[in-house]
């Protein structure tokens, strides 16, 4: 029995179809697997490798380049706090210190109850709401200490569960159309275009 669920595999099949080259689906598939498990499990890595036709080492080696992929288990909520220049100017370092106290973890750590993993992030492109924070890649900000405490308690109580889904950024919307065209189809389309163009030119010269 495979490790990836039928639902994930269905989405994976769509992704494998849309790219001219299977390997291009590697990163989206890692996102899907992480959506299922919260991190990239060794089992998922093996299955992804089979799906895109590379070795598991290549999947792991590729995934490890990217900040978003976790190769170890993480908490239910990954709290990523930007401390880059625009947020720094607005008090991000102080907020990050506060977060470490409130959650009682260091940067990169996970709380004992498994609820929160705290990360220091590079610029998240939310500088108009600095200091900004992402929880499972959903934006919050600008936040002061009180705002942060409120966010944490809302996350704990489940009040934000519609806004902050569990892990994974590709889980909620599926691609519905436009599967990869075959070379024949593409050639046929090109022929149609060519004749449409000739028609247009003919029209132009008569008008």
């Amino acid at each position, binding site marked *: 029995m495979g490790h990836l669920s039928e639902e994930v595999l269905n989405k994976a099949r769509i992704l494998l179809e*849309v*790219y*001219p*080259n299977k*390997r*291009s689906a*590697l*990163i*989206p598939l*890692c*996102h899907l697997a992480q959506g299922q498990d919260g991190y990239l499990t060794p089992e998922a890595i093996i299955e992804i490798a089979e799906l*895109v036709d590379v070795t598991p080492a290549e999947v792991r*080696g*590729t*995934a490890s*380049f*990217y*900040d*978003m992929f976790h190769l170890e288990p993480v908490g239910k909520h990954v709290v*990523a706090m930007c*401390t*880059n*220049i*625009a947020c*720094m*100017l*607005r008090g991000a*370092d102080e907020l990050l210190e506060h977060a470490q106290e409130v959650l009682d973890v260091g940067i990169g750590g996970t709380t004992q109850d498994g609820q929160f993993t705290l990360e220091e992030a*590079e*610029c*998240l*492109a*939310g*500088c*108009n709401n*600095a200091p900004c924070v992402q929880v*499972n*890649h*959903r934006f919050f900000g600008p936040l002061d200490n009180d705002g942060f405490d409120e966010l944490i308690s809302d996350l704990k109580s489940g009040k934000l569960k519609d806004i902050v889904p569990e892990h994974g*950024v*590709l889980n*909620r*919307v*599926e*691609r*519905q*159309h*436009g599967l*990869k*065209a075959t070379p024949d*189809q*593409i050639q046929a*389309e*090109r022929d*149609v*275009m060519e*004749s*449409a163009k000739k028609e*247009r*030119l003919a029209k132009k010269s008569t008008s």
Partner: protein
Amino acid sequence: MSEKAVNKNLPIVSKRLGLPDAYKLETYLATGGYDGLKKALQMNPEDVSNEVMKASLLGRGGAGFPAGRKWSMLKANPVKYLVINGDESEPATFKDHDLIELDPHQIIEGVVIASYALGVNQAFIFCRGEFALGLERLQSALNEAYDYGAVGSDIFGSGFSVDLVVHPGAGAYICGEETALLQSLEGKRGYPRIKPPYFPAVMGLYNQPTVVNNIETVSNLPWIIQNGGDAFAAMGQDSSAGSRIFALSGHVKKPGNYEVEMGKVTFRDIIFDPEYGGGILDDLELKAFIPGGVSAPWFGPELLDLPLTQEAIASKGSMLGSGSIVVFNESTCPVRAAWRISKFFYRESCGQCTPCREGSGWIEKIMHRIETGSGRMEDIELVLDVCDNIAPGLTWPPKQTTICVLGPSIPSSIVSAVNMFKQDFVDHIEKGKCTFGK
């Protein structure tokens, strides 16, 4: 403001950003959506390219290369690709983020117009992975656009077909660099490719000719086709045609994205005018500002009256870059600011080139010890020396010793900080602590 910059055409790319649900097809159509594409499909592809050429639309991704020229350089080939760069990770840049979340159909329309002009049948939008909502909005909009017949086979009955894929990034600044982006899109680590031979126009995605354009660049296309390239070129100044979104952040009262006509507005306007930044946070004095993203050298208050054009800013030794302006008020510790920027480059260097990989680490270390009070007086010379090894001569634009320009961008902020605020470095070292109480 100098000369009230209310051009009746504005806003162009950001016109729907204030609408609550412009990301839905219904609202998009009700506000003129897909009219540009319909018009383009009535034209010859070459004429579409010509309009873009006439518009003198400069790329909005950072390098400012004219889009029309880039298109004309695409090598003829049976298979060609168009890839849209929505990786937006340059610190303090957040314009594409808004365009993706709030007006995804405008991007899709621009992509299809560009694909038609270029004769491309397969296009990709590379969207930064951290934009979870953006990815959802883009994919939903794409589904709607396929249903509406604006993407896919035989678009609006024109005989033209293009497939479009929304591709997620996974968190790596370097993937904004176009060749690293293509590597990532091929399912690999985001290592920039060496040019030559890997110029995307000749050897891009899957080694086929490829155009890479920024999100904001293509978002301008529907308007340009609707109103003509000449109308776009009539706005702006010198080679900086049209309007552009500036992302304003840091110590201003109203940080945000502001679209202005190029050259008609100065830094003073955008930072102080109530319509834009609204002045300095806490009414303190302005200390310095970064004119175009963290790869750009800093400016002092004496340059506030420069107009926002590529030429004007280049003439003073910096760049417009990604269009992000970061404002420092007098409470800012310049050592800390420069250190934080160097930490960013250290974390994001892909590690292929020695000067960038090693240099970024050294610079971060030295800057950190100066900031935290354990620096030595020689450190100031030392850090400049390391910078000089990455970009010899420390000129602007920097000399290239590496595969991509991330490396040579590292010295900008360090050199600016030392040149403009040397006394602060000295004070940190003499007093053995950050003199701004950080």
